[in-house]
Every structure is written in structure tokens, then in C-alpha cells.
């Protein structure tokens, strides 16, 4: 999947799923690669990259040291929606894929979208 295809893919996701508010692909050290958002200026996209990379790093430490497994995903549940985070290997480098939903999207649907997006991005990789 080249850069243009990723942008189109993110556009399609946000268009298709009304309650999906933001999709973000970042490097593991917190630099934004591609981001699409319906949230306007309410959320600084650079901040999304920094926060999601921090959450992934802490979740990975927890996975390894507490659970004894490899980190797969993190879900943050709020009264306004979910933040779902996946680690994804693209072009030989780990990346962070994050989704923000509104409160009317069910967690199952959000997980389905997130997992499906990972598969698509990997297939195009």
C-alpha cells in the first residue's frame, strides 16, 4: 500500500463509519505518518501520536513483565467513546495504528474495524 492508498483507505474508513472519529498511523517513537480526523481542532494530531506511542510502550512493558506475552492491543474506554490502539509492522518497522470512536459505536464494532484495518494495511504492505 503506497502513501496515497493509505490516505484513501483512511478517508474511506471515516466516511463509511459515522461514529469513527479519528484514524492515526504513527511511528513507535511518536511521529505522525498519516492521520485523518473528524474532530477538527479539538485534538492536536501530534499529541495523538505522542500519547498513543507512550501507551503502546507502557502496554508492551506490561505485557512482557506482568502477563508474560507479546503486546497486541490497547483499549481505552471513556464515557465519550473508545481509543483503540494496535501495533503494526509496516515496511520492516513497528508502527502504531490508533482509532478514536464516538460514544455510539460499540466496542465490538470498533474492534472489528481496527482488526480489519490492520489486515488490510498488512496485505497491501
Amino acid at each position, binding site marked *: 500500500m503506497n502513501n496515497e492508498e493509505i490516505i484513501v483507505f483512511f478517508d474511506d474508513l471515516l466516511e463509511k463509519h459515522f461514529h469513527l472519529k479519528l484514524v492515526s498511523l504513527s511511528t513507535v517513537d511518536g*511521529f505522525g505518518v498519516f492521520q485523518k480526523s473528524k474532530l477538527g481542532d479539538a485534538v492536536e494530531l501530534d*499529541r495523538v501520536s505522542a500519547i498513543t506511542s507512550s501507551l503502546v510502550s507502557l502496554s508492551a*512493558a506490561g505485557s512482557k513483565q506482568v502477563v508474560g506475552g507479546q503486546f497486541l492491543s490497547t483499549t481505552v474506554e471513556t464515557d465519550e467513546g473508545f481509543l483503540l490502539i494496535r501495533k503494526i509492522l509496516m515496511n520492516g518497522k513497528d508502527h502504531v495504528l490508533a482509532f478514536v470512536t464516538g460514544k455510539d459505536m460499540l466496542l465490538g464494532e470498533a474492534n472489528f474495524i481496527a482488526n480489519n484495518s490492520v489486515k488490510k494495511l498488512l496485505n497491501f504492505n
Partner: protein
Amino acid sequence: MDTVYRKLVVIGNVGAGKSTIIKTLSEIEPVDTDVESSIDIGKELTTVGIDYGRITLAKDLAIGIYGVPGQKRYSFVWDMVKENMWACVLLLRSDEVPSDDELLELIQYFIDDKNETPLVVGVTHTDKQSFDMKVLQQFLSKHGYVAPVFTIDPREKEHSLLLLHTVASIREASKAR
């Protein structure tokens, strides 16, 4: 007697040795949130979460050592960590010293009560670049910070303990006043 836990925060610029000093000092396996850097910052790994280690200083006193990312865009982590800080260690890379404004901003971010929170400075990588400690001490003093400055190698336990014991001594002395 119950053990009291205190929070020591290690701050400083990228590559100064914050994660290293925690690895050196910690008596438990540190929580390590280093990831591969995607840009050239002079080293392969960078901290993006919180590094954490722990050391027992006395029968009733354990120190939780928290390392924060050096990059300012992670200041949301700084906000979380600086709450109830017991003491602060500032590490500076001698060959990449931040500007006066950046340095002051960093210190002020963490220490807003100059008389209460002990600060100790460790200058690292002095084998690569010599460093004028006097200039730094004068700078700190000009801005109201009384902070001992040492050159250290954060890989050396003795050097790292020197910083730790110094902040602990300052804390004890301020308690006695």
C-alpha cells in the same frame, strides 16, 4: 516499621543517560519503555513512556525512580510524573547542552518551589566534550536554584549513587531546618 516510598524524577535532554541511570540504580528489573528511534537523535533507542526503577535507601525508605522522555512533545508524561516529586535529578549531555531558555524552561516545569524540591545535576558524556561546570552553576544560581553539579557516567553505580545520596542529603537537611 512500614516502608515509605518516595518519588525521584530523572529529567534531561535526549541521550543524556536517563534510562541508563535507572537501569544502573534499580534493584528490580526496570520498566523500560525505550523504542527504536525513527529519526537521527544520536542513539538507537529513545524513551516514549515512563522508565521506572526502585532502590531501597534505608530500612523504612524506598525510592521509586521515574525517568521521563526528553522530548518536550511528551510533556503530558512530565505532568503525570512530577506530582508529589520528592527530588529531581537533571542529566545533561555535555556535547548537546540545551540553550539557556530551554534549560530554564525544563527545570521550571518540574520545580516550581525552589526551596522545597532538591535538585542535583549530573553532566554526562564529558569524555566527548569538556564542560564548564562553573558556568552552569552560575546559571542555576542566577535563577535561584541551589543545585550541586557533578560529572558522571550513568553506567557507573558509584557515580549514580553519588547523585542519589546527594539529593537525599539535601532533602534531610531541608527537613532539619
